Each structure stands twice: as structure tokens, then as C-alpha cells.
């Protein structure tokens, strides 16, 4: 609509490999960057920033699951457990050894990756539903171990309080500072995933997802790459867990129960399997949905319901609508919000001359 796609010639390999070959793409990314780096923190109330903080954490976690589920085709119902591994690893390192965040965050991720590889080993032998159950078992085993090992959980309460991260001596304790802190990790995660999926490793993942026997025949070491997928996915989960710990300043296993794993599955399925942007959409959708429904019901609910029962109705309505919307998306657009977005974009690309 506003731009032409023809007439841009690439004369270097670098130009050919760019994320955004068109100027309009680069400009929009720059604009979005400015929006979230400058405009949003300057003008938004801390409340909205807190939502964005939660979304940033969810993006990191959802990207991790999408690498495993969307790109490699290996299902995992233990994502939240890997998050808890990262959270407790970092919490122990921070409180016992006083590690700064730039060491604690990657070590939480690495620990989660190690556990993820262990859980991923059965994936060579079992697939699909069987693998789902194996990872489900991992969820319960990890939960149990954390819950019953005081050395990990820090005592009966199974929760470890963690101080706020410090950045060059500055304690990040306001909502704006935490927003920048978390948003930086989300941005790194997004860029890293975009690069990963078009690298040698990412293409191997996609080959395994599409047809693992064919992938093996063309020379991909399926075992190794499946374990890579588990390791990378768990690394993201672990990092998300550490970010949670920093944001809430506590590591608690009750934040990483099986429902959270299901939430993350919902994110990548609603957002779009095998797409980076889809993970972002899914994370935004699942995190924001309860809030939007609540705002909507606060505004319009009183027309339909008695105030006494409105609170009850709002709460139930949200669950019903959430379930209904998942079904709606799966039926109308099985490829998720990402496909919906692409449809809109493609429509406006040639608008108003559709044919």
C-alpha cells in the first residue's frame, strides 16, 4: 500500500542475508524499537509496564517452547519444570554466592539445559503422545525433587527470596528499570531465535520436524539435534525462570506448576507453531487476555448483570471465552495469530488494488 517491493537489488551476501531486505521493514522495526524503548516507558503508567514485564518473560519462555515444539516437532509438557530449574539454580547462586545477574541468568539457563538434555534422551526412542507423557513425568519429578531437597529449595517453604538485580551499582527496583531489564532479554531472545532458525541447526530442526527419517538419510544426526533442541529450549525456559525470580524477587515452585506448562503450550499454539513472531503474539495474547476481559466486563458487565453476581460472572466468563477463543482460532486459523497477521499484511500489501 505504502511502499513498493520491487527495485531493491542485493549485490552482497550480507545484503541477501539481512533480516529485513526492504527499507520499509527496517523502518518499521526501528519505529517499534523506539516505541518500546522511549515512548512506552516515558508515557505509560507503571501498571502497564508491569504487564509488559510479564509479557517479556512470557516471550522468552514461549520462544523456547516454540523451538522445541514448533521447529523440531518434539512436544514437551514439562516446560514450567525447566523454568523452575533455572529459577532455583539462579536463586541459590544469587543468595549463597552473591552472583550478579549477568552470571546468574546464563547459569540458570545452562542448568536447565542440562536437565533438559537428560529429559530429552527418551525422545530418540519415543515420539508424539509418548514423549508428551515422558516430559509430563519430568515435570512431576522435578517438582518433587525441588520440593523435597532443602539444599535446593532453601527450606520447608521451598521459596528463596532474591534481591533485585544491580546494574553497574544501580539497583533495578522501579518498574521502568525492571521493564528495560526484562525487555532487553526478550529482545535478545527474539533476535537469537530468528538467527537460530535459519542457521544450520535451525534447518536441521525443521528437517527433523517435517520427516525425521528423511532427515537422517540426508545426513542429519537426529539424536544429536533432538538433544540440541531440548537443550536450547530448556535454556530459554531456564532464563525465563530466572527472569521471573528477579521480577518477583522470589523463587517458588508453586509458580511453575503443570498449569504453567499448559499455558505456554497454549501460547505457542495460539500464536503459531514454528514462527518467532507467533511466539510473541501468543505470549501477548495469553498474558493480556484476562486483563482485557476484565476491563471489558467492568465496562459493560453492569448492563447485563446484577453487581452482586458480576464478579462471579466475570471470573467464569473469562474462562469460557478463553476456551472458546482457542477453539475458534484452531478452527478458523490453525496456523495461529501469526497467520492471521500475515493475512492482514498481505491484504494491505496490494490494497486497494486487490487483483
Amino acid at each position: 500500500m505504502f511502499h513498493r517491493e520491487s527495485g531493491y537489488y542485493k549485490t552482497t551476501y550480507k545484503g541477501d542475508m539481512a533480516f529485513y531486505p526492504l527499507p520499509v521493514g527496517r523502518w518499521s522495526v526501528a519505529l517499534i524499537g523506539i516505541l518500546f524503548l522511549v515512548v512506552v516507558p516515558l508515557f505509560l503508567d507503571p501498571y502497564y509496564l508491569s504487564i509488559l514485564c510479564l509479557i517479556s518473560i512470557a516471550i522468552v519462555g514461549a520462544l523456547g517452547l516454540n523451538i522445541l515444539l514448533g521447529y523440531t516437532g518434539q512436544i514437551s509438557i514439562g516446560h514450567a519444570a525447566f523454568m523452575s530449574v533455572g529459577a532455583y539454580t539462579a536463586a541459590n547462586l544469587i543468595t549463597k554466592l552473591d552472583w550478579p545477574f549477568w552470571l546468574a541468568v546464563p547459569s540458570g539457563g545452562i542448568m536447565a539445559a542440562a536437565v533438559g538434555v537428560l529429559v530429552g534422551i527418551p525422545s530418540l526412542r519415543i515420539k508424539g503422545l509418548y514423549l508428551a507423557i515422558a516430559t509430563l513425568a519430568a515435570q512431576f519429578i522435578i517438582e518433587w525433587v525441588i520440593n523435597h531437597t532443602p539444599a535446593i529449595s532453601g527450606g520447608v517453604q521451598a521459596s528463596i527470596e532474591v534481591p533485585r538485580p544491580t546494574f553497574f551499582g544501580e539497583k533495578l527496583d522501579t518498574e521502568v528499570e525492571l521493564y528495560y531489564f526484562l525487555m532487553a532479554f526478550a529482545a535478545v531472545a527474539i533476535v537469537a531465535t530468528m538467527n537460530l532458525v535459519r542457521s544450520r541447526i535451525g534447518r536441521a530442526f525443521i528437517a527433523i520436524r517435517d520427516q525425521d527419517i528423511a532427515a537422517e538419510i540426508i545426513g542429519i544426526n537426529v539424536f544429536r539435534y533432538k538433544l540440541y533442541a531440548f537443550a536450547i529450549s530448556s535454556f530459554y525456559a531456564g532464563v525465563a525462570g530466572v527472569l521471573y525470580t528477579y521480577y518477583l524477587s522470589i523463587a517458588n515452585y508453586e509458580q511453575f506448576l503443570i498449569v504453567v506448562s499448559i499455558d505456554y503450550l497454549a501460547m505457542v499454539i495460539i500464536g503459531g507453531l514454528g514462527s518467532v513472531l507467533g511466539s510473541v503474539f501468543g505470549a501477548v495474547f495469553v498474558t493480556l487476555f484476562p486483563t482485557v476481559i476484565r476491563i471489558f466486563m467492568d465496562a459493560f458487565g453492569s448492563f447485563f448483570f446484577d453487581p452482586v453476581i458480576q464478579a462471579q460472572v466475570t471470573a467464569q466468563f473469562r474462562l469460557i471465552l478463553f476456551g472458546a477463543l482457542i477453539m475458534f482460532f484452531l478452527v478458523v486459523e490453525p496456523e495461529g495469530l501469526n497467520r492471521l497477521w500475515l493475512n492482514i499484511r498481505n491484504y494491505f500489501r496490494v490494497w486497494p488494488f486487490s487483483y
Partner: protein
Amino acid sequence: MRRLDKLLFGAGLALAAAGAATSAGAAEIVIGLQCDRTGPTQTVGTFLCPGYHDYVSLVNSKGGVEGNMIKPLEIDHEYKVPAGVEAYALHKKEGAVLISLYGTPHTQALTQKLTEDKIPGTSPGFGTAAAANGENFPYIFPIAASYWSQASAGVEYVRTQLGGDLKGKKIAYIYYDNPAGREPLPVLHKLRDRLGFELKEFAVPPPGIEMSAQVLDITRRFRADFVLSHLFGRAPSVSMKEFKRAGYPLEQVLGFVWAGGEADIAAAGGFDRVEGYSAMQFAGVGSDYPVLDEIRAMYKADGKDPPEAMASTVYYNRGVFVAAIHLKAIENAIKAKGSADITGEDVKNGFEQISGFTLGGLVPPMEITGFDHEGGGWVRIFQVKDAKFVPVTDWFQGYRDAVVELLKEDASRQ
């Protein structure tokens, strides 16, 4: 694709309207109310939260607190921590002077934020027992007996039931295998060493619907003289059935505060099936309290029937209890400040002046001080007799010194 245009436009319009409608608000005293009406503990939230709202409406209908209207902003967080954190941020934005927390992980996740923002939060019957120490947790108010206080009161009740001396007696502690379930253990160990009874612990793994082995162990092998049962969710009703099936007298089973709601009794087969079962309560049970009569009268004046939730008196009354303590703290804050322009800090001080406020017996004779944020850890035992809950003790505290000792130990550890 024309439809898509319209759809997007319509969605945008709806959002804009919703935004406009929520931004309108008058100068009222705002309380942030976190609820769980849809999550794993919905059997509590669906009764507790209406109780809270009804008491606030009652006070508002009588002119409010010192002439100021109270506005509880309820947010249902489905027992999910991120939703609870977001709810807190919204409450803070709306200027809440007090947060009614719900859920142990939420309380822990928000403890530091509440302390930084100087907004008091209450955690009746959940959260960490150590938070009763107001010197360590200045902005967390359990306002009801913590698990430590419940355990010590339970032992005291067992002592009176077993003839005044526990030496050589066998007490079984059956608990839900999670942090909350294990929390009373230090108190029980301390009291075991002091009073010389034999204690055996029986863990029930989540989700707590299978415990026949543990119950058999308690009744046949260990042959407990008394059972303390600290279970949640579906587990209490299962435990009642199992003890009944094992032929164990339910008079010798005492449930902690989340193991004795009307819904649990109904799930176990009804009141006539669990005759003798007793449960500990931190708010009065039953419908014979003047404040509940006033709420019914308020509904009647509006030409409505009282809500169905009122029939579930255990949790409904707890909602009334929590609201009453909150409004009392706000009243104290307004009186101390001389104006309605109060902050979270004023309300914190208001809490610490609460004493001798019993609301016709619904609230224990608690006294909240700068150190003791649980107000003394009072409980009352209600037993199922003739198919209803009957109080079998007065409000009492058990071995307060043991609990205070633990609170101090915990404080020195940090």
C-alpha cells in the same frame, strides 16, 4: 476481507469505550481485593469474596467508615502468580491503601513489593508463618492464626481431649505434601519434645485424593490416639471418608483451617455422615451473628434474597471477618490522621492498633501489635454435632510461647 476491516474497527471501538468507562472514578478509599473464584481453590473464593463484598456494602449503606465510602476492587487471579502480580500493579495504580491477598505463592511474590511501596497486605490463614513477626515483615499482616499457631492450638486441644496429659500419647499428623503442609512441623517437633507425646508424620502427595494407605497406617499400625489433619482442596473430604471406612472415631480427628468447610463435609457425604469431625476455625462459623442478621436485613430492604453463598458459613464468614478487620484498620487510620487522606503506612499503623474488636463473636479477641501481626493466633474448634457445626471450645491460643520462640528464631536466622 472487508469483514476483517469491520471486525478490527469494531474491536478498536469496544476497547476505546472500555478504557473510557473504567477511567471514571470518585474519591473513595480503595482496597485491592484478590480473589480466586475460578482456580484450584475456587471452593473458598466463591464464598469468601461475596462475604467480603457484603460486609463492605453493609458498612457503606450505613454511611461508610467515618463517613467515607469504601470501594473494594476485586480481581480474580485464578491462583496464578503472574495474574496476581498484575492485579497488584493495577491496585497500586488505583491508589489502594490495603491489599487483600489470596494465596501463599502470591503473598510471597508480593511481600517485597508491598514493603517497598509501603502498602499493607493481609494473608489470613495462608502465607508464611514467619510473617507474623511484624518487625521482619512490616507490611504483611496474617491477621489470623498462622499454621504454626494452628498446630500449637491443635496440640492444646488434643491435650484437653486426652485428659490433660500428653505424655506417652500417640498423635498422628497427616498433611498435604507441600510447603504449607510441612510448615507446622517445627512447632509440632518443639511441642513433642516439651510434652513428651509420640508424633508420627504421614504425608499425602498432591493432589491428595488417595490416602487409604496412610489412613490404614494411622489406624491399624500406629493406632493413633488423635489425628491432626492438615489437608487442602479435595483432600479433607477424602480423609473423612477414609477414616470413617477404617472405623476410626471421627471425634479423634481435628482438621486445620482449610480442612473443614461446608463444601468439604458435603463432598464427604453430608453432615450426617461425618458426625464428630471437628475443625479449627479462625472466624466464627454459623449464621447466628448480629452482623450476618444485618446483612440479611440489608438485602431484605433492597427487596432481594440473601445470596446463596451465605449458606456456606465457614468461608462466607471468613470473608466478613477479613473485611471487618480491614475496615477497622482503615477506621483506626482515619481517626489517627483526622482525615480520609490516608496512605498505606497509616493503614499499617491502623492494623497495629486493633484490639478487642470481636464483631459479636465472629472475630476472635485478637490484639495486633507491632511485633505480632497475627493478633495472637486465636482459633476456635467447631465440631459436627447433630448435623451442624457446633463450637466445642471458646476462642483460645495454644502454647503461644513456643510460636513466639520460633518467630524469634526465624528472625535471627535472616
